[in-house]
């Protein structure tokens, strides 16, 4: 047995592993498991404070479900496009890969765009007494609650609360933090995807043999998508639902 030591490191992909599984992929899965706890803690905070805001605006005032449904749809589609990019790469269709990657990044950016729009419209939101009737039409549900809100609006909303800022109330604090961190994850994903796209123009950097580099980014991207699935249901759809005490 030769004992001389070569100071070089073969790529991790090709090393012997006990389970036959790749190191980096396993790392990614462990990280995603861990990241669940990260979002879990944020969601727990949001839910503990649900309905505890002392002043408005409340979720029902600001959420615009149709708009968020569209951005949710965009994010879902970006997941599909990501998986298609990966599939293209494994079949050595480098152009297909580039197109799907680009479209993933664009859809991700669109999602972020929606989020920026949402944040800015929430933060400039104010209850307008005249438009109370209009609001009701817009949501068309939970009339009693809405009516109560509008009457409240007459008393204090308008002058005291101009827009939902993170500082405004607990809803603002928890909502912006939770969705903001999700947005940060998406942004990081976009950077990652764009880096890979860029690298694919360098010879030998993105090849079917090295599909793992893309696979990892894809896993991350899909994870961000599933987190959004949870957020959309728990925060948006349940958010305007009058829970006891809220």
């Amino acid at each position: 047995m030769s004992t001389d030591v070569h100071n070089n490191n073969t790529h991790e992909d090709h090393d012997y592993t006990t389970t036959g599984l790749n190191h980096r992929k396993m790392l990614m899965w462990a990280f995603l498991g861990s990241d669940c706890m990260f979002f879990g803690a944020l969601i727990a905070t949001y839910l503990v404070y649900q309905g505890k805001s002392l002043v408005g605006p409340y979720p029902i005032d600001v959420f615009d479900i149709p708009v968020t449904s569209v951005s949710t749809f965009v994010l879902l589609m970006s997941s599909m496009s990501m998986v298609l990019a990966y599939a293209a790469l494994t079949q050595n269709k480098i152009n297909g890969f580039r197109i799907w990657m680009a479209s993933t990044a664009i859809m991700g950016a669109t999602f972020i765009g929606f989020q920026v729009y949402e944040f800015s419209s929430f933060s400039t939101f104010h209850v307008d007494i005249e438009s109370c009737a209009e609001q009701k039409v817009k949501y068309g549900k939970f009339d009693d609650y809405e009516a109560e809100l509008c009457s409240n609006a007459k008393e204090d909303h308008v002058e005291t609360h101009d827009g939902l800022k993170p500082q405004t109330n607990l809803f603002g604090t928890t909502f912006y933090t939770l969705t903001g961190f999700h947005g940060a994850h998406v942004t990081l994903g976009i950077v990652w995807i764009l880096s890979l796209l860029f690298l694919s123009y360098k010879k030998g950097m993105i090849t079917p043999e090295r599909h793992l580099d893309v696979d990892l980014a894809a896993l991350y991207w899909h994870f961000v998508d599933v987190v959004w699935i949870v957020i959309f249901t728990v925060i948006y759809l349940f958010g305007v639902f009058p829970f006891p005490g809220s």
Partner: protein
Amino acid sequence: MSKEEIHHPTAKQYFRIAMVLSVITAIEVAIFYLEFLGYWMVPILVVLSTGKFALVAMYYMHLRYDHKLFTYLFVSGVVLATVVIFAIISLFSFGIGRW
């Protein structure tokens, strides 16, 4: 290079899954507007979104085709996070919180 690839779904299947996901989302939003459901909405929406979650994890993240170990690593995080969320909420709802 590993055996897993062989089983990977085709682009068409991926597309079909995307359609299913979109349809579920549409149903969710529709249900949201069905006021008469009242509190029944909560379990229905939970089931639907869990379904979406599972679809993405199993097919897009190919957990279904990969080694079980990956599933364990990920699901332990998911399950623990869920349990902790429920535990904290219930502690607040019968503790000194104001629910």
